[in-house]
């Protein structure tokens, strides 16, 4: 396995908090206002993890949440990583992302600021992202571009917004995004709880794929259009064949084996990053995990358990 050759992950996806200023219906992490997880890493503990990431020469870190910008020490983390040459991706809903933040981030090696534009009309956006403002999200995109930051747009399709995807692709292009990301709605977290209200129909997905294929030809080199693998099951199938060299860190410092499963394989509060990486590699040889991955590939409804974290016996967690 490729992961057995690497001394550290290629990418750390770090969910800084479960807290968020929005209460999105499709949220995979069940984030919402006031939903900070008990035991989230504090500023000192977060900086300890930052040092571990730097010491182990992890080249790329994604800072996400919840909403990372609600974390008071977000910029301290980003600046410490960036100063050490770690490349960064910031995932944000854009509600707090202003020119001042953009200018500070623009001094760092930021490869992407990813902002969710889940609609192209304010009413649909607010229905899918209660508490949010599409105008603010657009302003955040403009602030990122004005500061010279690379902008990436994401779109999570639901029954509410899927018909606006073509308009959002055009909006992303106009805003100067270098990439547009989408895929099938994932049955995890809040989305799983509201599945019967959110899941797009087969016909809606067919239309969405038609739009994507048409747009992929039309926009050619002006913006990347990324939608494959389309479903999390397809992604899991690839992971089963070749486990990804990526590490998903929860807000309390625990490490998940993979997003769609509940299994936790390490705890970065008590273990070094090297130990956690060892545990992660071990998890992908664990028969229980492999059986669960097979089940999750076959039945997406099982993904709804992904946030009921389950500590693996193999790990010192």
């Amino acid at each position, binding site marked *: 396995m490729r992961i057995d050759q690497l001394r550290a992950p290629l990418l750390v996806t770090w969910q800084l908090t479960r807290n968020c200023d929005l209460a999105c219906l499709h949220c995979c992490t069940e984030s919402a206002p006031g939903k900070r997880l008990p035991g989230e890493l504090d500023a000192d503990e977060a900086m300890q993890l930052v040092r571990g990431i730097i010491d182990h020469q992890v080249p790329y870190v994604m800072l996400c949440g919840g909403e990372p910008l609600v974390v008071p020490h977000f910029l301290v983390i980003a600046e410490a990583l960036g100063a050490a040459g770690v490349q960064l991706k910031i995932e944000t809903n854009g509600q707090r992302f202003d020119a001042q933040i953009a200018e500070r981030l623009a001094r760092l090696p930021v490869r992407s600021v990813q902002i969710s534009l889940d609609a192209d009309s304010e009413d649909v956006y607010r229905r899918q992202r209660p508490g949010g403002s599409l105008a603010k999200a657009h302003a955040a995109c403009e602030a990122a571009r004005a500061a010279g930051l690379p902008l990436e747009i994401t*779109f999570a399709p639901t029954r509410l917004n899927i018909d606006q995807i073509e308009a959002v692709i055009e909006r992303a292009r106009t805003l100067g995004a270098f990439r547009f*990301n989408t895929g099938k709605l994932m049955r995890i977290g809040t989305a799983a709880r509201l599945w019967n209200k959110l899941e797009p129909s087969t016909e809606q997905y067919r239309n969405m794929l038609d739009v994507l294929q048409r747009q992929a030809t039309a926009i050619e080199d002006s913006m990347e259009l990324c939608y494959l693998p389309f479903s*999390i099951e397809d992604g899991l199938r690839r992971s089963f064949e070749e486990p990804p060299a990526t590490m998903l860190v929860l807000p309390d410092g625990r490490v998940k084996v993979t997003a769609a499963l509940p299994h936790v394989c390490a705890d970065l509060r008590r273990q070094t990053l090297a130990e956690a990486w060892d545990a992660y590699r071990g998890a992908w040889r664990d028969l229980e995990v492999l059986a669960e991955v097979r089940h999750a590939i076959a039945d997406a409804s099982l993904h709804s358990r992904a946030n009921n974290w389950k500590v693996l016996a193999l790990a010192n967690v």
Partner: protein
Amino acid sequence: MDDSKGTNEAIVQGQQANNEKVARNQKPVWETPKLEDVSEQVMAQPYIRFT
């Protein structure tokens, strides 16, 4: 004088040297992760790509 003691020690020392050699040979050759390898891994995981 017991010559077998010296012989046994030599055998043990030889085994230890062999074991160390084997251990050295089995030590994994770690690759330092490189940024250029990241993109494909990110894009292959919808959860990371567009959540």
